[in-house]
């Protein structure tokens, strides 16, 4: 039993998809249980925060933290997880890069509260009641709520992270890889990867994509959306004019989206060589779009119209990586100034 490691699974601002992803190990889950005791996992076990706090420091071999850091509760638990874990893994796109919750960084707390507690048509809040960090009732009981931050952070922004596991959510194969790493380490067979490693492929996503590309040049007269056409399941999405983040995205997921005839949305994050996942991909698309046209004759309005085919570039190209991106940091900066 002493050979066994301990595992904790804690979520921050998360959809809990990552918890389910781990359970998706199915029968291999028992293999996990053979080598690891799950000591803390609020989604799976009846545990309380105080149980985690009571554990000795560094008593958890591997701590998996999924979800972004949205509020003070997320951050506090991130610190506790760090303290209690020997190895802390940012598990899933949100912990790694901020993920979907990170899209909210184009707004701030007031903006979000205004939307949620005031502006949405279904909101009925005439007294304009909003969450408060502290509240005393008539009997002088102090009630508290976690502080909702102005911005969403990735786990790496608040604590030191040992490894990153991208994807939304990490796939079965990726989980098997972590399991194998842990098993091999336990048997003293293999050293652990260097700190800061992203546990996935170092290659670009297109490497795993089985779609065919035609010979020679590619052109993109206009951009097409899934709402307009049924993509050819055998052809490269970009060739069909469909925005796909493959070239700027890390491989390792096994392309489940693409096999379901959905273009890559970039949840694996960029490879090491990519300057900025969103902007680099936008650069590529904007370069190619309408390349065949006789441009000298095009006036500014036409170019604007052409480029406006790229709808919602932020949502499309920064879907998972916004808080970690250059522009995301600038946007965040601006909030502080306001």
């Amino acid at each position, binding site marked *: 039993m002493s050979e066994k490691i301990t595992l904790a699974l804690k979520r921050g601002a998360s959809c809990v998809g990552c918890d389910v992803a781990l359970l998706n190990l199915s029968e291999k889950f028992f293999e996990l249980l053979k080598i690891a005791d799950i000591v803390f996992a609020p989604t799976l076990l009846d545990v309380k925060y105080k149980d985690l706090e009571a554990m000795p420091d560094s008593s958890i071999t591997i701590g998996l933290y999924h979800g972004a850091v949205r509020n003070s509760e997320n951050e506090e638990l991130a610190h506790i997880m760090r303290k209690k874990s020997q190895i802390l893994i940012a598990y899933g796109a949100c912990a790694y890069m901020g993920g979907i919750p990170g899209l909210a960084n*184009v*707004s701030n707390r007031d903006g979000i509260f205004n939307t949620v507690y005031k502006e949405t048509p279904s909101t009925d809040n005439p007294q304009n009641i909003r969450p408060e960090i502290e509240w005393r009732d008539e009997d002088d009981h102090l009630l508290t709520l976690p502080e909702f931050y102005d911005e969403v952070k990735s786990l790496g922004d608040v604590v030191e992270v040992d490894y990153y596991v991208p994807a939304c959510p990490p796939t079965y194969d990726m989980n098997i890889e972590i399991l194998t790493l842990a098993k091999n380490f336990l048997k003293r067979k293999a050293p652990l990867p260097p700190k800061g490693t992203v546990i996935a492929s170092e*290659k*670009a996503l*297109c*490497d795993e994509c089985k779609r065919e*590309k035609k*010979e*020679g*040049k*590619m*052109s993109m007269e206009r951009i097409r959306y899934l709402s307009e056409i049924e993509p050819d399941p055998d052809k*490269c999405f*970009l060739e069909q004019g469909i925005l796909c983040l*493959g*070239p*700027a995205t890390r*491989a390792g997921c096994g392309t489940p989206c693409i096999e379901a005839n959905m273009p890559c949305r970039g949840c694996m994050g960029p*490879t090491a*060589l*990519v*300057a*900025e996942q*969103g*902007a*680099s*991909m*936008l*650069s*590529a*698309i*904007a*370069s*190619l*779009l*309408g*390349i065949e046209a006789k*441009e*000298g004759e*095009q006036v500014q309005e036409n*170019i*604007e119209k*052409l*480029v*406006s085919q*790229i709808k*919602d*570039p*932020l*949502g499309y*190209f920064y879907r998972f990586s916004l808080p970690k*991106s*250059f*522009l*995301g*940091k*600038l*946007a965040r*900066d*601006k909030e502080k100034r306001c």
Partner: protein
Amino acid sequence: MAPEGKALVHSVLVIGGGVAGLEAARNLAYANHETYLIEKKPVLGGMVRRLNQLYPEGMPNSHTLEPLIEEVRKLGKVEIMTDTELMSVGGDPGNYQVKLRQGRKVKDLAAGAIIVATGLKEYDVGRITPYGYGRYERVLTPIEFEEKLSNGEIEPEALRSVVVINCAGSRDRNHLPYCSRVCCLIGLKEAKFVKDRNAGTEVYVCHMDIRSYGSLDSFYNTLKDVYKVNFIQGRPSEVQEKNGNLSVVVEDAVLGEILNIPSDYIVLNHGYVADEDTLSKLKIPLDSGDKGEFPTTYCNATLSIDSNPRGIFVCGCAAYPKNMPETLVEARSAVLSVINTLRDISLKTAVPTIDSDVCAQVKCKLCLSVCPYDAIVEEDDKIKIIPSVCMGCGICTATCASGANQLEGFSDTELCEEVERVVEEDDTVAFLCQWSAYPLCKEGEGSNLKKVKFIKLPCSGRASLGLIAKVFSYRPRNVLVAGCYPDACHYNRGNFVARRRIFAMKSLLEQFGISSDRLRIEWIGKHEARKLKAVLKEMREEQVK
């Protein structure tokens, strides 16, 4: 610039045995280049052989053509092949593999460079139906008219009236939208040709306007004042026939009257079209694909030694219509370009490298489409750059989303390091094209502006959005990308690619809550130091919103 691993071939292929080709071959021979001169017809001489005389002096063609042919033959360094046509060209600059067809035989040869002197074709005037070419025997093209008048088929003494219709089909959306440049003067020549033989013949030249540029304007004045040729400004609507007599209907724009001019002969002074056949085999793009327009854009671009990646030069009327002196000058300039190309003193800039491992993973091939020179090819299942064709603009580097493609000297790492080194908060960062705006910032103009940082790019097309995102992370006040004016890009389209990227980036910035005014793209010419300064000053005065 020897292609990698291949020998540099010093012999040169000249396609076309007209005046341009002959003059090119002659000069190449003097410069000690073995030269192949091919002509698809059985005789040398091209278009000039078909002319009777040349404007403005009326010099017989034989005075220029025959001595030229004789000299080329005598030089011995030129292998003349008539009845020979180009089949295909492969290989790279410095070592082209050429296939020729001579009757049923196929001949292979190697050439380091190629001069295209294939001349032009006459526009088919039969397509201008109201003028009745082919319907009436006395409606002729200038060459036919000259021939009949000089061989006696038309007796000058019997000529009472001749009408020359200039711009027949030219500057006309239904036919040729452009000006063929030489026809106005051909019209003058035809008028003089008649008047010299019979001063009593009434000659009318119907024209849009007479484009007798430079000193040739005195030719026009002489014909008008001394020869008493009638110039009528107006485009004839039709040629009419009554009882075997022809007349031209034209509205005189000066008098505002509709004239009906009886005429013995009508000369349709048509425009000219490119000889697409050879040009397309050499992948030289015409200005507009289907209309037979000349490859002027290509030819103008190739005037600069470092923007002709191909070692294929066009001269004479193959580039666009021109007269004999202009043709001779251009043939010599093409020879000079060939000599420079084949000399191993390459002025070439660094080219991008493609990390083949990374690229093999992605193989998106977007770079193939954006390269203005087709310098990126797919070979043995790999994407490769042909160094001898690449001009180092970096448009492909800025397109590569995977980071596999990096232009030496302007790689992502190098540019990001520069940004890191120089950019401070609240700066105005100016990315300037090395051909236009960048030299200006060194000249003092604007260089004394505080908080303005200049970063040199090979072309505005190198400005990738990843780089611009990186710059914005240093919280500059604003960012400028300055490129050359439309159609003035050294690399044909780098500025346009840059413009599309910047526009896309602007909408992205807006979504991030960053005012899109903080990112500007401006066209700044290489002499516009004042504009650069004004733009930068304006940007310094802008407040961050």
